[in-house]
């Protein structure tokens, strides 16, 4: 039963990347050919790796995000996997050799907070698909069902060195819905972009936004109302999970009634879905940690987390990462206490900082944002290393979406998401010149044949060209 194996993949989050051949053994088929909707494929990934000859990049500075910066080093990848990283690597005879003299190589960048595709350009109401602002709890909606693969912002982010994103619902709702974890490649359908085996994220939001959106239409209108809203939803989900877990043991009798909202929350309670929590204020993050303890789940990352530096010790102890901007502040009251050292202070406290974009402009220069945050920390006397700052935009966000064993570093066996930079990626003057996604040359700044354009952009006269 092929469908059942897909289901198990989705539920357990077993990581089976394309071409890896690591899919778990199939479970025995149920006796009956009748299935309930829950046992059928749930919008499965149809991602397949694009073929590419083996590639050897040599004579470059290799930044591995594992603590190494190798001058005059090489990276070899083949069939979507990194084969070797080091000072001297031999190329197979069929390899494309890229001269990296003067260039830098990093893992593909990962943005764990993007609204690409769900708030697509050109930004009219027709593309406004990120907030299902009809109910404060919409755990039943999935960002992938809004995602538009022809969003012209996608090629721009690819040209910035991004290889994987978490596309999130907006923050209007207490519980906004499931995220989509996507390989950032040109595609006709979102299914072709879905990262095989990735855990879904669940978007939750604290503070001003839900209050503002629902304050005059039924609530919540206060922060205490926000808390009551999360608790009510998870209380229902606990009962739902119990009913289904009991039925799944023996499949006796009719299955319980299916409820998409509780189904998402039950997955959080089972630990299969990661909570991605928009939350600005330190005191509110502490409340959310207590909420997670009450229901027995973990918050994987606090997003925006503008005041996380105030409770960096608490967050490090809890093992919750923080997905922050380098320097955004002041656009609303809960963002007033932003400091440029937020990521650095969390690093210093032993936490796991991530630089995220939440922005179609910022996603194109995540390296620059990490650079600003790193140097701001260093100037304040916080000893941030280049490797740590690189991890803020590679393996740390990979961890936040549960993929750090597959992507985020340059190590043999990892997926070949690789960026070649014109110079030091922490310089304002450097640009991504080649972007490989799963070993495939997704972008080449010097070759128009590898500069994808969306359908939306066709027919624009005159075309903006490769430097849009």
């Amino acid at each position, binding site marked *: 039963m092929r469908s059942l194996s897909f289901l198990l993949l989705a539920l357990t989050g077993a990581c089976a990347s394309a071409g890896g051949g690591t899919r778990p053994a199939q479970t025995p088929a149920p006796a009956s050919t009748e299935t309930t909707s829950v046992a059928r494929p749930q919008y499965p990934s149809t991602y397949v790796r694009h073929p590419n000859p083996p590639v050897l990049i040599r004579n470059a500075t290799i930044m591995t995000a594992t603590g190494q910066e190798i001058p005059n080093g090489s990276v070899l990848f083949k069939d979507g996997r990194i084969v070797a990283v080091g000072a001297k690597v031999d190329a197979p005879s069929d390899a494309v050799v890229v001269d990296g003299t003067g260039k830098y190589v990093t893992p593909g960048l990962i943005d764990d907070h993007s609204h690409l595709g769900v708030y697509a350009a050109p930004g009219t109401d027709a593309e406004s698909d990120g907030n299902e602002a009809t109910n404060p709890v919409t755990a039943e909606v999935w960002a992938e069902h809004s995602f538009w693969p022809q969003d012209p912002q996608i090629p721009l982010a690819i040209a910035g060195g991004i290889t994987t994103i978490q596309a999130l619902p907006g923050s209007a709702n207490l519980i906004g819905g499931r995220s989509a974890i996507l390989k950032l490649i040109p595609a006709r359908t979102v299914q072709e972009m879905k990262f095989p085996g990735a855990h879904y994220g669940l978007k939750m939001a604290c503070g001003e936004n839900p209050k503002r959106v629902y304050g005059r239409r039924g609530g919540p209108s206060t922060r205490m109302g926000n808390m009551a809203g999360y608790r009510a939803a998870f209380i229902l989900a606990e009962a739902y999970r119990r009913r289904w877990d009991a039925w799944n043991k023996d499949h006796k009798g009719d299955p319980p009634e299916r409820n998409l909202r509780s189904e998402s929350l039950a997955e959080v309670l089972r630990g299969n879905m990661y909570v991605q929590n928009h939350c600005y204020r330190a005191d509110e993050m502490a409340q959310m940690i207590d909420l997670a303890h009450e229901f027995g789940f973990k918050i994987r990352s606090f997003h925006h987390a503008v005041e996380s530096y105030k409770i960096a010790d608490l967050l490090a102890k809890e093992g919750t990462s923080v997905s922050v901007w380098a320097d955004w502040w*002041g656009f609303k009251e809960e963002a007033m206490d*932003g400091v440029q050292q937020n990521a650095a202070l969390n690093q210093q406290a032993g936490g796991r900082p991530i630089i995220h974009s939440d922005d179609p402009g910022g996603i194109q220069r995540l390296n620059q944002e990490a650079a600003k945050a790193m140097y701001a920390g260093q100037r304040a006397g916080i000893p941030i290393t280049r490797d740590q700052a690189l991890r803020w935009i590679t393996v740390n966000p990979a961890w936040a979406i549960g993929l750090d064993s597959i992507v985020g570093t340059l190590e043999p066996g990892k997926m070949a998401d690789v960026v070649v930079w014109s110079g030091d990626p922490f310089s304002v003057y450097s640009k991504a010149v080649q972007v490989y996604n799963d070993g495939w040359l997704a972008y080449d700044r010097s070759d128009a044949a590898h500069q994808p354009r969306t359908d939306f952009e066709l027919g624009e006269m005159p075309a903006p060209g490769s*430097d849009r």
Partner: protein
Amino acid sequence: MIALLLAQTIAITGGTVYPVSGPKLANASVLIRDGRIVAVGRNVPIPPDATRIDAAGKWITPGLIDGAGQLGLVEISAVPGTRDASLQGDTIAASFNVAEGINPASTVIPVTRIEGITTALAVPTGNLVSGQAVLIDLDGATIEQMLVKSPVGVVADLSESAKDAAGGSRAAVAERLRGVFRDALEYERRKTDFSRAQMQALSASARDLDALLPVLHGRVALIAYANRRSDIETALRLATEFKLKLILAGAAEGWEVAAAIAAAGVPVLVEPLSNIPGYDALGIRYGNAGIMAKAGVKVALLEPDTHKSRNLRQQAGNAVSYGMTWDQALRAVTLSPAEIFGVADRYGSLEPGKVANVVVWSGDPFEFTTGVEHVLIRGKEIPLKSRQTELLERYKKLPPTY
């Protein structure tokens, strides 16, 4: 005059000076007295009573000028009570001068100036004619002390966002502006008839028409926001028809008509890091500023987001990445905006006689590695403190001491 309050001589010595008005000078000094620059060069005699700032190994530039944003006019974007940049209920708000809305105590000002931005345009927003923009220095206890020039220009919107104020069509935007301009000129000719109520109804209030007269006589600029190529061309057409001193702002598709903008001698205020296509500018691209500069357009670079004004130097660095020369980019955040705003006799370069807005950087001002070491505004050294540096100090070690 305010600067004279602080009679003081300061010598910034031994750094690499980028005067902008001329080539860089290695191992040079800038001598400042009573708020003005009195000498710049390699062999400047330093008076014994001068306060010395050792700038060995440092870069010295004029203070950066951000020709956009609402510094002093907006404290918290989402809190209406702290926003003073828009006039409601008046489509033609030409007489609305934002100066008295400025809050010299805004916490956004120290956050911005300690990153090397010393001067900014405070720009009214909204409506078809938004009001009068003023130029301010980012220091001063009162509005009077901050003002550099008021008004710098009357702001009009010819972009997509102005259509509603004009009834829903770009054609109406242009025609409405023409009507108002004609009425202003007729009102000027027939003020007596107007006061006797012997004139047909005018398309804007008398005070707004009055405020447009300096624009129509070329004494005050019209700052026109336009992005689509055809809207830029409309702005150029209006400028020709009414002999306006035009400043284009936004100009996202300006690269497509760079030659025409250059031929018209019209300067442009542009944000380098904008490339997200929308129906107001499908041709938007990073290369815009560089292409226009290459075509001979006078370009000033912007960071239009008030709270991110400090990122003007990141904008400039990226303008270099996408086609401007480094020298062009530095000029585009110093002397060019000073020229465009009509204050180049006092601002924008390090030359004797100019107001001493000076920044000492640890290196290339556009690079992330670089920190600001000293900021002088009107010859006064600014403490490198803000609400954010105080938050950092409080929480650097946890738990904090309250």
